[in-house]
């Protein structure tokens, strides 16, 4: 897989030339070392999105890097989807024939793919068993787990674990997402790309065009939640909070999510949301088609407040996106959200509908406080949750793997 080139220098206006120089300096300390990324899909999904940036950036700073995508087939990916659900703790039956297929596909890929590199990074559970072939190839092997495996079905985790322990190290997105393992575990947060269509700066005209197209008038403060229509995102709770807040402050609500036409549960949730909205013309329920990146960007930027009132959450990249846009965020203290929203500093954490309503009122009445939270949030994302931070973390990890046991590494 060869993604289009990306230049690190393009990020200098965002992160500063000093940080760009530091990243290049770190890369020089890895001169001559090669890297390989392996995952299960070239397009669609967060991991492919991440690799589409990380791989060309590594190449741009002089690291010989390849990206291999494993081949599976419909039946294999059906198995891995069930396994994914089981790792999330959702009921899913994993039968012995399914495990045989999983191992067989991994073995065939191990034979077909060129897995030779100084650093081999295997992303997520699908290709995890490729590690059985490592003896023939050498190099350091790292399992990058993008999934929250803290509460899995024990059988599914036990199956996976036998392969995970064969790696030199593992990487998780949040301390809360891990399992006890005998190998070293590192933390690398997910990241957003500040230059992508979903996050790049927009002009006032571009924002206005999107609002007009979506039928939203910018004549009163906009409160927005961007999330698929899923009960775990609690869109009905967001409506209740808005309704409570509206008793004393003027605002309008935008709930923007993907279309739910091919998802029976999503359609049911959407119906519940419409019922809860009760025809209020100031509640805008938007079913956005895939690739509505500019629309989401504009909605977030136009918002006085961005809400993420999830009942359960992964890392919560929609929160990262809103923080990056300098928006004050009100979010539930679940999953990876407290890693990003430091209460009263980069946003406000809430635990109930009333809490969300109270905080909506607080921020609409105190725009200076809201602006301060937004500015802090943007700075926080800039230092920790951008593609370039992700790149830097991978370089630091690669160096640290070459100095096992050292906690302070002074490089020439």
């Amino acid at each position, binding site marked *: 897989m060869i993604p289009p080139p990306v230049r690190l220098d393009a990020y200098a206006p965002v992160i*500063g*030339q*000093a*940080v760009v*120089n*530091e990243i290049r*300096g*770190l890369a020089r*300390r890895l001169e001559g070392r090669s890297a390989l990324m392996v995952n299960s899909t070239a397009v669609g999904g967060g991991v492919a999105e991440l690799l589409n940036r990380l791989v060309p950036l590594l190449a741009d700073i002089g690291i010989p890097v390849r990206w291999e995508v494993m081949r599976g087939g419909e039946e294999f990916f059906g198995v891995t989807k069930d396994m994914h659900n089981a790792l999330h703790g959702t009921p899913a039956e994993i039968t012995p024939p399914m495990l045989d297929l999983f191992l067989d596909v991994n073995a065939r890929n191990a034979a077909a793919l060129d897995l030779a590199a100084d650093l081999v990074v295997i992303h997520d559970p699908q290709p995890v068993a490729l590690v059985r072939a490592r003896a023939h190839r050498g190099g350091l092997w790292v399992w990058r787990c993008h999934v929250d495996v803290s509460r899995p079905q024990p059988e599914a985790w036990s199956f996976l674990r036998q392969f995970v322990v064969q790696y030199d190290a593992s990487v*998780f997105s949040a*301390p*809360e997402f*891990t399992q*006890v*393992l005998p190998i*070293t*575990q*590192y*933390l*690398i947060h997910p990241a957003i790309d500040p230059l992508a269509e979903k996050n790049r700066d927009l002009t006032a005209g571009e924002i206005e065009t999107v609002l007009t197209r979506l039928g939203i008038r910018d004549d009163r403060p906009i409160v927005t939640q961007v999330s698929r229509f899923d009960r775990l995102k609690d869109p009905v709770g967001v409506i209740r909070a808005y309704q409570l807040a509206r008793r004393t402050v003027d605002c309008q609500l935008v709930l923007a999510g993907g279309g739910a036409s091919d998802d029976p549960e999503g359609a049911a949730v959407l119906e519940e949301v419409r019922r809860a909205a009760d025809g209020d013309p100031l509640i805008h329920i938007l079913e956005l088609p895939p690739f509505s990146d500019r629309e989401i960007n504009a909605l977030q930027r136009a918002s006085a407040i961005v809400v993420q009132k999830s009942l359960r959450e992964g890392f919560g990249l929609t929160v990262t996106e809103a923080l990056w846009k300098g928006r004050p965020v009100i979010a539930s*203290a*679940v*999953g990876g959200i*407290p890693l990003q929203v*430091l*209460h*009263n*500093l980069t946003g406000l*954490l809430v635990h109930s509908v009333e809490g969300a309503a109270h905080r909506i009122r607080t921020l609409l009445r105190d725009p200076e406080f809201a602006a301060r939270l937004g*500015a*802090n949030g943007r*700075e*926080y994302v800039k*230092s*920790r949750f951008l593609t370039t931070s992700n790149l*830097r*973390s991978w*370089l*630091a*990890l690669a*160096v*640290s793997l070459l100095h096992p046991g*050292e*906690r*302070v*590494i*002074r*490089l*020439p």
Partner: protein
Amino acid sequence: MRARGTEPFVFYSAAHIVELTGRTARTLAELRDGIRAVTGSSIFHHTFGALRDRPFTGHRYHSDFARWAAEVLQDWPVAERLAFMDPTEFTSIRQLRERILQVIEDRLAEPAEPAAAPPGRQFHFNQSISLYFPSGREAWTVEELGEGIRAASVGTLFFHLVEARLRLGRCTNDLSSWLAESLQAPALARRLDQLDLLVPSAEALRGQVLAALGTAP
């Protein structure tokens, strides 16, 4: 004061990766046990590292321990005492660890209903692996030092001004050491030693350094 140092000031770049220890705490007593048991790199990560990673807030809590005690345990007496503790007043992790333990022990000795973190909000002990390397920039004069500070990343400022205390084992910084020893400028070195390191932002810190050097634009 010499116009030119006997040796150059070498600007360093810094990077770090976070390692998860797997150790968690749900209560203040478990936090104490963890603080006692973890590596110095972990204490560094949750104190100095917390200052480094949040360069914007006026450092309301100064450490992850204080923030967790406040936001999760909502044990305000211990949170306030930990928040008041300024890591930059310490020149060794051993001293800092002992002081934190003393504050927590004092609180545990007080009659209070022990609070526990709700599920999912445990304290996770992590540790920093720190990497340092020469940035390629050097300074021979005060003016060049100012230029370097103006161009430095937040990580470089933190390395030379804040973390330096742990490396040097005294309340000073790399810039002051170089000014005093290589440039024979003790008055200027003392002025830099007196900087308030917990200003609200990295840019404010940069501004303070440039003003102290007399090289602010």
